[in-house]
């Protein structure tokens, strides 16, 4: 039986803005000079002692990155200065499997965030990334014995080269978009997760990403392969301290869900408000497979992220739950994409967004049903809540149906907190802030309740805190 956490105890804390807003004073083992050029890429590959094919891929991707223009849609990228960023910072120490061996300052960072505590209480394994490298990784022994591989992506490249090369870049090639090309050129860290056939990982596996340095670019690369009949729930959290200058987080996540397998990928993103969060996430689900993205975006200056699922096998199912909170100076441009490629595939997209203090939340989605995807169904529901007259909500849902024997439905609404609801709760003795907080938590609850309990509690706490600041 799991130990209950008290309200005062801090669990894994992916989501508490005040707790995570601190800087760690630590010396790095290596720091690349600011700016991106072939020399930086060469140094990254040298530091990691990579095989030639990876090095070649990095250089090829760099060329693609230079040639592709910035997207003209979505958020404002005009202030993003690629030359001001550092693309690789290796923290002191090496990758450890025991917390006591992690360098003191870095260990204290993650202890403040509740990561080791969370691992002890309710996780099957944990990875912790500090700036460009994974500094800690562990996996329950029972899972290792079953053949589960859960390690830093860099390590997987060395230890499982055949498996790695078979899947790396196959779902999101560098040509996909400018930021996929950038990530492929300078990727470092991230998670490699392989679940063998028929293995079920009952407790979540977690990775925590921390940007510490100023003007930092973090480019983790995650690759998850779930073999037939397996299942896993992977959770990631991200935070950074607030600086006056900008940082960039541009990750790529590729997931392969084979026949009959199930993968849930949960993200609780709470980057500080100086971080550009530009991420490409895509999964492919085969016959009778299930893929779920649970995507919570609370922080960052600008997030552009559209988790996608390609339903390639008959009977495959996809679900995307998206929660976005955007406050003063923030733009959450998030959404979902589902492509129905095979018969009898089903998808659900539920997106909820909350905008306050002049924040902007945009839902950008695509549901495409290709010819031959007979019997496919999809339902998209988007709801937006505006907490004041300064905030903005956008909805851009594209539905493209080329198969007659399918059924696709979409609905969306934009509302504010109703005066009647506020009056009702206030008349029951709640203050206006408490009432607003209760209403917002109720609005977000269909998505929050799909999180593991401990994460849900944290998220509710953070929402309450953010809402109480809505007039500031």
């Amino acid at each position, binding site marked *: 039986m799991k130990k209950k956490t008290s309200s005062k105890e801090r669990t894994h804390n992916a989501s508490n803005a005040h707790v995570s807003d601190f800087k760690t004073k630590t010396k790095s083992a290596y720091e690349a000079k600011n700016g991106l050029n072939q020399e930086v890429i060469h140094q990254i590959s040298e530091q990691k002692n990579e095989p030639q094919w990876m090095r070649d891929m990095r250089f090829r991707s760099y060329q693609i990155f230079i040639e592709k223009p910035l997207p003209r849609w979505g958020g404002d990228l005009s202030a993003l200065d690629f030359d001001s960023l550092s693309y690789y910072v290796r923290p002191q120490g090496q990758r450890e499997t025991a917390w006591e061996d992690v360098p003191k300052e870095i260990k204290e960072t993650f202890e403040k965030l509740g990561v080791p505590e969370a691992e002890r209480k309710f996780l099957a394994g944990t990875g912790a990334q500090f700036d460009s490298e994974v500094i800690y990784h562990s996996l329950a022994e029972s899972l290792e014995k079953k053949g589960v591989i859960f390690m830093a992506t860099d390590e997987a490249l060395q230890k499982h080269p055949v498996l790695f090369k078979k899947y790396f870049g196959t779902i999101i090639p560098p040509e996909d978009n400018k930021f996929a090309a950038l990530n492929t050129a300078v990727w470092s860290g991230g998670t490699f997760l392989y679940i063998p056939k028929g293995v079920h990982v009952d407790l979540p596996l977690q990775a925590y990403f921390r940007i510490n340095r100023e003007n930092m670019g973090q480019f983790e690369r995650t690759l998850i392969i779930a073999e037939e009949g397996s299942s896993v729930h992977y959770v990631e959290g991200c935070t950074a301290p607030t600086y006056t200058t900008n940082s960039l987080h541009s990750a790529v996540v590729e997931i392969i869900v084979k026949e009959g397998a199930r993968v849930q990928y949960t993200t609780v993103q709470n980057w500080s408000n100086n971080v550009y969060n530009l991420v490409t996430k895509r999964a492919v689900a085969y016959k009778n497979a299930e893929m779920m993205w649970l995507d919570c975006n609370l922080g960052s200056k600008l997030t552009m992220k559209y988790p996608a699922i390609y339903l390639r096998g008959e009977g495959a199912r996809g679900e995307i739950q998206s929660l976005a909170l955007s406050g003063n100076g923030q733009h959450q441009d998030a959404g979902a994409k589902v492509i129905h490629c095979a018969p009898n595939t089903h998808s659900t997209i539920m997106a909820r967004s909350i905008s306050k203090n002049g924040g902007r939340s945009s839902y950008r989605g695509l549901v495409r*049903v290709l*010819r031959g995807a007979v019997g496919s169904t999809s339902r998209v529901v988007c709801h*937006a809540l*505006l*907490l*004041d*007259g300064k*905030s*903005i*909500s*956008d*909805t*851009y*849902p*594209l*539905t*493209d*149906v*080329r*198969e*007659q*024997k*399918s*059924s*696709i*439905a*979409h*609905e*969306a*609404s*934009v*509302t*504010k907190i109703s005066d009647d609801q506020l009056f009702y709760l206030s008349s029951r003795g709640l203050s206006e802030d408490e009432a607003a907080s209760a209403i917002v938590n109720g609005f977000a609850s269909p998505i929050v309740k799909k999180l593991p309990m401990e994460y849900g509690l944290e998220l509710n706490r953070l929402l309450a805190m953010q809402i109480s600041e809505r007039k500031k």
Partner: protein
Amino acid sequence: MDIYIQKNVSFTLAGFFLKGWNSRTHLNIFLEGEYSRFNCSFCILGSKKNIFPFDISVIHRAPHSVSSVVIRSVLFDESKVDSRGLVRVEKDAIDSTTSFSHHALLFSEKSTAIVFPALEILTDSVAAHHAASVAQLDADSLWYLMSRGIPRKNAELLLVQGFFDQDIQKIENHSLQEIMRKKLRASHAIYA
């Protein structure tokens, strides 16, 4: 085409489209005056290789403005509808109400519907929603009618009429309602 609707003016636009066109057309509606209203009801009956590419933008600029856009498409053969809608409620358009919907029925394997209803809301004092759906004729409803002795083609015709009529009956102007129904009845040849 740009249409500017002034204070206290109500403007209704209804259209029944059988023949497609090649280049994208743009309809831009600006609700400039307080309590201005815009109602739009489009019925599209596509056949052969007709395509219907169009944009509709409804921009709420004034308080208490109301808009309602309903589009229904039934597509046969290789016909295609490619519609992009944008409803934008600007900062000053407080207490506005807007709804936008596009529902399409695909009657053949080669028909295509691309539906893109976008919303941009810049004020919190608004009631806005939109909806879109693409599906084939409901098999249960078809079976029900056929089991009552109605031939398949006639049953399909009844269901298509009912599909369109859900929104035709909401047009406030009764004369306009009758015109739309008459157009629909006259297009029976498509079902032959």
